[in-house]
C-alpha cells in the first residue's frame, strides 16, 4: 500500500500495535510489516513524528530502557490511548461498513 494512503491511518495503526505490546520505533515498524504481511510500505521515519504527536496528545507514553544491550525508547499506550483506540476503531468500523455497503 502506498505511503500517502497509509498516512491518514498511521495513528490508528500505531495505537493498535502498542496496545498489543509496548515497543520501540523499529519494533513497531517490524510489527506493522509482519502483521500486514508486507503490504504496508511506510517510510520508516514517518513513524517517529506520529509517535511524538500521540505522546503530545497524551495517548502514548515513553521511557528509556535497555533492550538487547541497546538503550531504546519504549512506547506504551496510556489509559487515554486505550480509550482513543476504542473510539477510532469504532469510527473505522463505521467507515469501512459504509464503504462496503456501497461497494456491495
Amino acid at each position, binding site marked *: 500500500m502506498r505511503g500517502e494512503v497509509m498516512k491518514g491511518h498511521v495513528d490508528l495503526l500505531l495505537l493498535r500495535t502498542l496496545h498489543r505490546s509496548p515497543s520501540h*520505533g523499529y519494533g513497531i515498524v517490524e510489527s506493522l510489516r509482519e502483521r500486514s504481511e508486507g503490504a504496508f510500505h511506510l*517510510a520508516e521515519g*514517518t513513524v517517529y513524528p506520529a509517535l511524538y504527536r500521540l505522546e503530545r496528545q497524551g495517548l502514548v507514553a515513553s521511557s528509556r530502557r535497555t533492550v538487547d544491550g541497546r*538503550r531504546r*525508547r519504549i512506547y506504551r499506550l496510556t489509559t487515554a490511548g486505550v480509550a482513543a483506540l476504542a473510539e477510532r476503531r469504532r469510527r473505522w468500523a463505521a467507515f469501512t461498513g459504509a464503504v462496503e455497503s456501497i461497494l456491495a
Partner: protein
Amino acid sequence: MTIDAYLGELRDRLPNTRRRRVLHEVGPHLRDAAAALEHGGLAPDVAEAKAVAAFGPADVVAEEIAREVAPIAVRRAAVLVMVGLGVLVVPLYGIPQNFLPPAPWDERSAHLGALLLATFAAWALSLGLAVSAAAVSLASRPRLAVGVLGIAAVAGLASIGAAVATIVVWWLEVPHVPIGSLVAFSVPATLVAAAIVLAGVGWARDKRPLLT
C-alpha cells in the same frame, strides 16, 4: 548513504527541542534495520544504504518532526515569557519600593496615581495573557498561543514605559529621590526581564510557520 552520514544530515536539520532524543532513537533503529538486512544476505554497505533509504529522506523526516515538536517549543516559550514578566516585578516593584521615598500621598498629583495604576494594570494584563497563552498551547491551539504571547509582550513593554514615566514624575514631584541608585538597579533588571520576554516571543514566532 551510510548510517553515520544520514544521522549527520538529520542532526543538522532537526530542531534543538528534540535533536538528542531523535538521534538516540533513529541510530539504533537504522542499525537494527541494517543488521536484519545483512542477516538476510546483503553486503554491509548495501544493507546500510537500504536501511537509510527505507527510513526516508532526512529533510522530510526532520520537517515532520519539527512540525510535531513545534507546539512543545511554543509551550516552553510561554513559560519563558512568564518568567521574564515575573522578573519584571524587581524593577517595577522591588527596586522602587526600596529606593523611592514615600510619595506625599495626601497631596500627590492625580497623574502619579494614574501612572502607578497603569503600570501595574499593564503588568498584570501581560502576565495574565502569558498564562492564557500557556493554557491555550496546552489545549493544542499553539498558533493562537503565539498571537497571545505577542500581545502579552506588548502589554509588558507598556508596563515598562508606564514605570519609567512613573519614576520620572515621582522624581520631579517628590524631594530627595535617589535617582542615580534607582536607575543603576532598575535599568539592568528591566533589560534582563525585557530580553527574556522578547526571546520567548521570538522563539514562539519562529515556530509559527510549522504550526497547523
